[in-house]
């Protein structure tokens, strides 16, 4: 039996008569970079919010990091990190203060926070900027800092909800390098994205259409299956087929 860190079985979420997630089932392996793709309104954000414990599912069994999401949400929360499409550091606080605050809400000790802060600032080459307020930094740096902050408490899984929206290609590239590094250190990465070239970076991707998962495999296999050259074409074929 393989070592799955996210198990989703028959997840359904309804808002009134609208079904946002229709009987989803999928498994994510430990240490994997898992791409969660879909058009706007396909139900990606709803699913990711359920996995993070922000929403309660209407029905289904969901286990994240070995805990049941509906009944043990607090244990789940301790083991995950989250970075939303909205940029989530406090603009009016310095880099150091942001690290201290986010470390604090995850219950890290002052010493651990200082060590992690040093570590990430060194890695990003921002040691001199540690007392700079976030609002005066360029967007690319903020994004990388937000990611560092999201994994500073060593979560077992990091959920990234469209982390690269509005960022230039070079920064996106660097950002994905950070993602790989995190995955190499054993953190499972669950990422939603709009960019199909990014889908190629993922080890496995699932594609959602209208609340259902229509395809789930490695990018290579998917391209083979749909007899196309790029993920973009896979995506378009799936979305067309639906209409």
């Amino acid at each position, binding site marked *: 039996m393989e070592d799955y860190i996210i198990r989703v079985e028959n997840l359904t979420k309804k808002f009134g008569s609208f079904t946002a997630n229709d009987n989803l089932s999928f498994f994510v392996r430990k240490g994997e970079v898992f791409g969660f793709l879909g058009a706007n309104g396909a139900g990606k954000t709803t699913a990711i919010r359920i996995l993070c414990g922000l929403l*309660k599912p209407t029905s289904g069994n969901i286990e994240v990091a070995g805990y049941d999401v509906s009944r043990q949400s607090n244990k789940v929360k301790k083991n*995950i990190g*989250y970075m939303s499409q909205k940029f989530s550091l*406090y603009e009016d*606080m310095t880099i150091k203060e942001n690290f201290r605050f986010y470390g*604090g*809400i995850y219950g890290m000790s002052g010493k651990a926070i200082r060590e992690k802060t040093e570590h990430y600032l060194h890695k990003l080459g921002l040691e001199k900027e540690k007392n700079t307020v976030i609002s005066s930094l360029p967007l690319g740096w903020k994004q990388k800092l937000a990611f560092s902050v999201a994994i500073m408490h060593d979560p077992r899984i990091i959920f990234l909800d469209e982390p690269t929206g509005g960022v230039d290609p070079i920064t996106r590239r660097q950002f994905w390098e950070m993602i790989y590094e995190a995955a190499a250190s054993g953190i499972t990465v669950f990422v939603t994205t709009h960019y199909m070239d990014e889908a190629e970076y993922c080890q496995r991707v699932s594609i959602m259409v209208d609340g259902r998962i229509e395809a789930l495999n490695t990018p290579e296999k998917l391209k083979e299956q749909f007899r196309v050259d790029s993920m973009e074409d896979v995506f378009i074929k799936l979305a067309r087929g639906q209409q």
Partner: protein
Amino acid sequence: MKGFIIKEFYHIFRDVRTMVILFGMPVVQVLIFGFAISTEIKDAEIAILDYSRDNMSLELSNKIISSDYFILSENLEDESQIEKVFQAGKVKEVIIFGDHFARNLEKEQSASIQIIADASDPNTANLLVNYTTGIIRNYMAEKMGEQGMPIEIKTEYKMLFNPELKSVFMFIPGTITVLLMLVSAMMTSISIAREKELGTMEVLLVSPLKPIQIVLGKVIPYVVLSFVNAITILLLAFFVFGMPVQGSVILLLAESLLFIIMALALGIFISTVSNSQQTAMMLSMFALMLPTILLSGFIFPIENMPEVLQWLCNLMPTKWFIIIVKDIMLKGVGLAHIWQETLIIIGMTILFIGLSIKKFKIRLE
């Protein structure tokens, strides 16, 4: 939790707008009132209607006019002129001597003077009457010493236009109420809405923090600052206006704390129904500020309002708090007198906390 509170203070102290609203406004408001309402009288214009015109009435008139407080604007001939001089606006007080002033004093040891004051400015009216009766009492004492016989000058005063002298010192309880409401409700609702707008609220909700910790972390800094504000206003009231707290200061502060918590609960409730800072600001403005000022009795006496509005006033927490502050500060009453108002505010607090917990949960569903 501690980190959360520290973070909240960073937000407050680094935002110029927030700082101005928090600390600039109370001081400025209280000082504006301080200069707008003068508590000292100098050279107030008066008119005298003297039916006696004898030596004693003239002597007393001269005493009054020669004091620094009053200037004689005109001598009146009969009562029909009184209304006119008041309406002209310059004259603030009319002193009326009845017939045979001196003879009454000598023969009957008693005479009377009537003082009429323009109480549309109640503060000034009150001071004028007090100064005038003071001078008359001095004169009485002098005469008694000279003639060795007990005489009595009865003074009777009448406040024109505003007989009950409403709003004397009314502005301090009103200012405290408005400011606490503004700082507590508006600032918390805006600060929570800001986290939602920036997306940081989601990150907080994903973290192991419990919703109650998030709310407390948001609220505690504002409780502290509002409390500091309340104390500042009370100190200003005392040093600038010489307005002492007649009742128990501890009771007053405890009631203020209760009111602050009520306003904060209201602020959280507002933030749960608004998703942006703008909405939160507008809601606070229209749902809180205007009713607070207009329907609390702060500026317009509730008794003079149409019945429908009086009913609405009862729904305003501020109305009850103004009554509490006034009673403690001016009348010096204890809890026994204001328990009903206190209960109403406690009830409102529970209601708002309940509503916001319910709303907060729905968001997480």
